[in-house]
């Protein structure tokens, strides 16, 4: 390929696009990572929960006309659905083989897609960028959509909130202890079932938040979760299954890798993520921040 088109501004802009895309990947991976890290469940419905989140956003937006309401109530609605899923579908499988919840969530993913097709049609719906966040910003090295900058900001806020909640509060301490040794925690008199219920709902709500945030960037359709599931898995596996820090670092790295590939070999942009994953796994089978031997 002719490298004549390259200049510093373009490379800088490409790096920035990569980081911004990485923030989206972080958002996609967070919910998956939290649920696996705390409950040990690989949620195969994650991508479709993301999709349901986008539709919940459309639903709220159509009724209230406010993007901000959609951003708040969309994830809350889907989070409530998460409570029901944990209580009535996941919990009865406790103590059985770890394959069971995996199969369950796999099937649940199909149910969610068909449910949305029945309720909203198979066509896809438009979701306009909110007025106050539309337009482009001049970054000095190039132009970038204001909405995407906003998404980066929201992801940063969510990360700070999660970090504070997990590392600086008593509840966070219990959650972390529960992830390490649920037996001891139960012996100490903590209602671990209730803890798992809320952690699961949190993971689901985060996936849904990702969906609402993505809706103005992509068209909303029943299949939008399929690609997302693969991307979220690649990021969590690269970062180390269950590690929050891993998800953040891996998400940003993957964004940059995809973006740089898009510059030099655009048709390889989607493959690049998985090639990168294979490479990381060859060197560190447990992922960048994963603990060795943490099997499913």
């Amino acid at each position, binding site marked *: 390929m002719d490298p004549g088109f390259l200049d510093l501004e373009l490379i800088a802009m490409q790096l920035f696009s990569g980081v911004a895309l990485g923030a989206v990947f972080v958002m996609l991976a967070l919910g998956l990572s939290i649920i696996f890290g705390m409950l040990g469940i690989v949620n195969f419905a994650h991508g479709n929960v993301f999709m349901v989140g986008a539709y919940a956003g459309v639903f709220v937006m159509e009724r209230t006309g406010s993007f901000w309401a959609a951003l708040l109530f969309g994830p809350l609605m889907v989070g409530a659905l998460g409570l029901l899923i944990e209580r009535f579908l996941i919990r009865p499988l406790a103590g059985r083989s770890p394959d069971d919840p995996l199969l369950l969530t796999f099937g649940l993913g199909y149910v969610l897609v068909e449910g949305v097709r029945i309720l909203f049609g198979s066509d896809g719906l438009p979701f306009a960028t909110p007025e106050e966040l*539309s337009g482009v910003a001049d970054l000095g090295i190039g132009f970038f*959509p204001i909405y995407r900058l906003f998404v980066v900001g929201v992801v940063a806020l969510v990360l700070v909130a999660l970090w504070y909640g997990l590392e600086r509060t008593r509840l966070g301490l219990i959650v972390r202890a529960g992830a390490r040794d649920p037996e001891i925690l139960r012996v100490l008199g903590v209602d671990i079932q209730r803890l798992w219920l809320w952690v699961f709902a949190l993971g689901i709500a985060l996936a849904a938040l990702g969906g609402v945030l993505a809706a103005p960037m992509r*068209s909303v359709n029943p299949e939008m979760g399929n*690609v997302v599931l693969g991307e979220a898995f690649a990021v969590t596996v690269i970062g180390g299954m269950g590690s929050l820090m891993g998800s953040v670092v891996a998400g940003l790295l993957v964004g940059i890798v995809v973006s740089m590939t898009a510059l030099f070999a655009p048709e390889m942009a989607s493959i690049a993520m998985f090639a990168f994953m294979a490479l990381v796994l060859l060197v560190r089978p447990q992922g960048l921040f994963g603990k060795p031997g943490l099997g499913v």
Partner: protein
Amino acid sequence: MIRQGPGYSAVSRRTLVRGMAAAGALAGIGMPFVARAAEPIRIGFPTPVTGPFGAEAKDQIRSAELAVKQFNEAGGLNGRMAELLVRDDKLNPGEAATRTLELIEKDRAHFIVGALSSAVQLSVNEITRSRKVLYISISQSDTINEAKDFSRHTFHEALNPHMTTAAVAKHAFKKGTRVAYLVADYAYGHEMLRGFKRAAAAIGAETAGEILHPFGAPDYSTFMPRLRSMRPDILCICNFGRDQANSIKQANDFGLKKAARIVVPVLLHNQRLAGGADAFEGVVGASNYYWRLGETVPSAKAFNDAFRAAYGGALPTDYGAYGYTAVRSLLMAVQAAGDTDTDRVIAALEALQYDVAKGSERYRACDHQAIQSVLITESKKKSEMQGEADLFKILEVEPGAEAMLRSCDELGHRA
């Protein structure tokens, strides 16, 4: 369970009785005695009812059913009625092949019409060609015209990439125009790119650069800095469906529309609905049909009116209209041939001139490609739309002419 049991069966018995009564009434009213004796004309119709193009498929079915209904209401073929056998091909070449084979072997379909994606259509064509059954494809493709995929049983009612790109380029490109291409990296994108570049070379437009993107990519942000740095006058986006909606939306988010005009090979009704008015505003592309054609073309008005009357005021769409034009042309040929004999119907189709929805059309002898008009449309600004279905402005109607097609020689057909 106990409470529900008897109630359920009572409802179902009642429904059954009602259904039987209705069926009996229909048979009695609709058809004279001869019709009941004669074997119906069976048209197999594989189309992706489920999956991402379900909306287009449903429009195809409704349009095709309308064509069948009109044929039957006019008395059929001397009282012999037509029926449409719809099958879901799930947008999957293997599934389509199985369904087509079933239609031919088990349901004894006389003809096959349908398919929506180019890979699926080629797979249907494989089957019909080997079974010597007449097939009218209604999916965009250049390949199906070429000698290696062609057989005398193969007809192509849809536009092909060569025609659409030439028409769009003729309208949008000027000498010296700088064109940047964003292209989906699979057969459809490649065919469209090839068409545009060929037209651009003839007009004298320049290529500012081209980017191939992976099929089905949800995010195009990483291609935008590079596209912008090409400083194009026109950004030509060659992809389809969801990819088209997403890439146009994101090009718009990145402000590319302010710097360049966006053109696409095919501008579709349902994708514009899913993408939204703001994202598509000002985008120019080609299509086979748009309901506003009814303002200038009498057969289009008649088609709109019949469709509205049959489907509660709904309007026909582009890909849907193919279902109508293809089935109508087939049934006209059956009428002319006098029976369902494949060879006689092929001869009748080759000789047919038909105007059923968009002005005069005919199938070219060498490759059975329908020579027809191409519409150049522009997506309307939200504030200029009069009603929800008023999506596009017709900029130009490029009349059908053989010069729009690649020559028979080039396609490998010997005279």
